[in-house]
């Protein structure tokens, strides 16, 4: 079978309104996915702060790989290394077969980085024109304007744009050189819902053009909506890897709260209960599916009261995922 099939996104939960059909089918390049960039045993620290802790990763041709993690997880450090603007303390980086630090592969890379301030007096058109000139085969300006949604604002100075428009300019800067591999570092941070949706559809259009994209985000629903594959990064190490469906299965769950006359042990034995916390007769249960557990609870305790079922929520669950990992690693 073509491995490209396994790249297909899996229908996502209610949090993702994005129609799956928007994700275009992959071009099957080869029976095996082709690796176009990789990092091996990457370590980096800034003073006492460990940014990357023996990290390995691989980017495959044509995929959208999401690096998901909280702030300070090491996502930006990793992106900077792959772009060749930072070096690991140890380990090696290879992009299109060479060390990006040597400066020979930048013609094929595009980057959207978090920039505190972009020169404000230059117009959108001028920024794109300048960055396009750096690349050997840039997109025609009009095409960049269209893809990045800049046609309406191309004659306005950068300083007069809204937050969402500014992000679109940075996106335009990333794509204008028609690169094969794009790095999008938190492209939707600080955007409102509408601007985020727009950015998502622009990112999808890149994949439709056969580009490979590495996206960093701290929103699980963003990774879920866009990615073929997700790496969960925490404290400089990859703690989970899989398709969005796999990651979500690990992170999703329900929380059941109630007061009951059952003992902690009795509650714990109910099938489907992952963990229980008890405070006198108040219980808090983590479960995969709420219904069977609730049914069982009601059957066993007719006095059961204050029943409350909540969705663990993607973000909370994701935080729990990283938090659990932190606690576990502390105990080691």
């Amino acid at each position, binding site marked *: 079978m073509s491995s490209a099939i396994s790249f297909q996104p899996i229908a996502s939960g209610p949090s993702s309104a994005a129609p799956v059909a928007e994700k275009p089918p992959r071009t099957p390049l080869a029976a095996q996915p082709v690796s176009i960039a*990789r990092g091996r045993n990457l370590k980096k620290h800034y003073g006492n702060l460990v940014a990357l802790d023996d990290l390995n990763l691989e980017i495959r041709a044509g995929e959208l790989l999401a690096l998901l993690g909280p702030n300070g997880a090491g996502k930006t450090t990793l992106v900077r290394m792959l772009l060749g603007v930072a070096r690991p303390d140890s380990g090696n980086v290879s992009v299109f077969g060479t060390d990006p630090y040597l400066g020979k592969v930048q013609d094929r890379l595009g980057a959207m*980085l978090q920039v505190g301030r972009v020169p404000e007096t230059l117009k959108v058109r001028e920024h794109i024109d300048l960055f396009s000139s750096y690349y050997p085969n840039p997109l025609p300006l009009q095409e960049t304007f269209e893809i990045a949604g800049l046609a309406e604002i191309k004659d306005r100075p950068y300083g007069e744009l809204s937050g969402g428009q500014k992000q679109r300019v940075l996106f335009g800067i990333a794509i204008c050189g028609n690169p094969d591999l794009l790095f999008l570092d938190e492209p939707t941070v600080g955007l409102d819902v509408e601007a985020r949706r727009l950015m998502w559809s622009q990112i999808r259009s890149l994949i439709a053009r056969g580009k490979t994209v590495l996206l960093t985000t701290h929103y699980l629903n963003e990774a879920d909506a866009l990615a073929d594959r997700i790496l969960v990064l925490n404290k400089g190490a990859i703690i989970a890897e899989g398709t969005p469906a796999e990651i979500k299965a690990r992170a999703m769950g329900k929380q059941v709260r109630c007061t009951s006359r059952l003992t902690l042990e009795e509650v714990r034995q109910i099938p489907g209960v992952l963990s229980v916390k008890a405070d006198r007769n108040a219980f808090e249960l983590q479960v995969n599916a709420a219904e069977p557990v609730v049914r069982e609870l009601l059957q066993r305790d007719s006095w059961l009261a204050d029943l409350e079922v909540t969705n663990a929520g993607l973000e909370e669950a994701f935080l729990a995922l990283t938090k659990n990992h932190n606690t576990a690693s502390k105990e080691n």
Partner: protein
Amino acid sequence: MAATTFPAALGLPRRSLQRSLAVYAKEAKYELLKNVRIPVYAISTVAFPLMFYVLFGIVLGRGEPASTERATYALATMGCFGVMAVALFGFGVSLAMERGQGWLQLKRASPMPVSAYFAGKLFSAVVFSTVIMLMLLTVGILFGGVRLPIATAARLVGILVAGSIPFCAMGLAIGYFAKPNSAPAVVNLIYLPMSFCSGLWIPLFLLPHGLRVLATFLPPFHLSQLALNAVGLAPNPTPAWGHVEALIAFTLVSLGVAAWGYRRDEGKTYG
């Protein structure tokens, strides 16, 4: 899994000369446009030297017997003051901001040759310096009675524009160490006292002896002496080469500090 490696040469056409030139030209054009459109930059670099020149060089000397000489003298020293501002702000402040706020990093992640970035700033500084000198010269001729042979005037402008290079280097050094928000203050703290102590505002022979000794260690002093030499008003007959050597040494030290900062930057994070 099979990891295919790409030969480095694949799909990487060497940068043609024409394309390189286009990058340098665009970088220069947009750096200049960017600066021209920043009111604070345009005003503080062009308007201040002009204002000081009118005040110290022309208005205050009105009616004195040596007013023409005074206007010519101030043309050289205020010209020096003007080109310094262009270089120190155009390199120091703008580099500190673009570096500290992540903009330079985005450019470095692109295939832009780093030299094009600095060449663009140098071009902008040269254009601004030339404009300032031509304005000072015009005002001096129209209102200060300055009369210089064309060749002499051209030499004065040439010396001062070329003489901004050491201050561009100093700007680089500042730009690699100053934080974006404090850079303007840092530049002013160096620029203004250094100008005064080098005799750009008040001629050195009117200053105490200690300051006159101190001045010989300051680059604006050496540049202003070269400029005064060009218009035949240098008070001490030091050979020009001494001043040129001092400026070259100062440039090299500044570039060394800048290179140190550049390297130091590579190990840093920008959050």
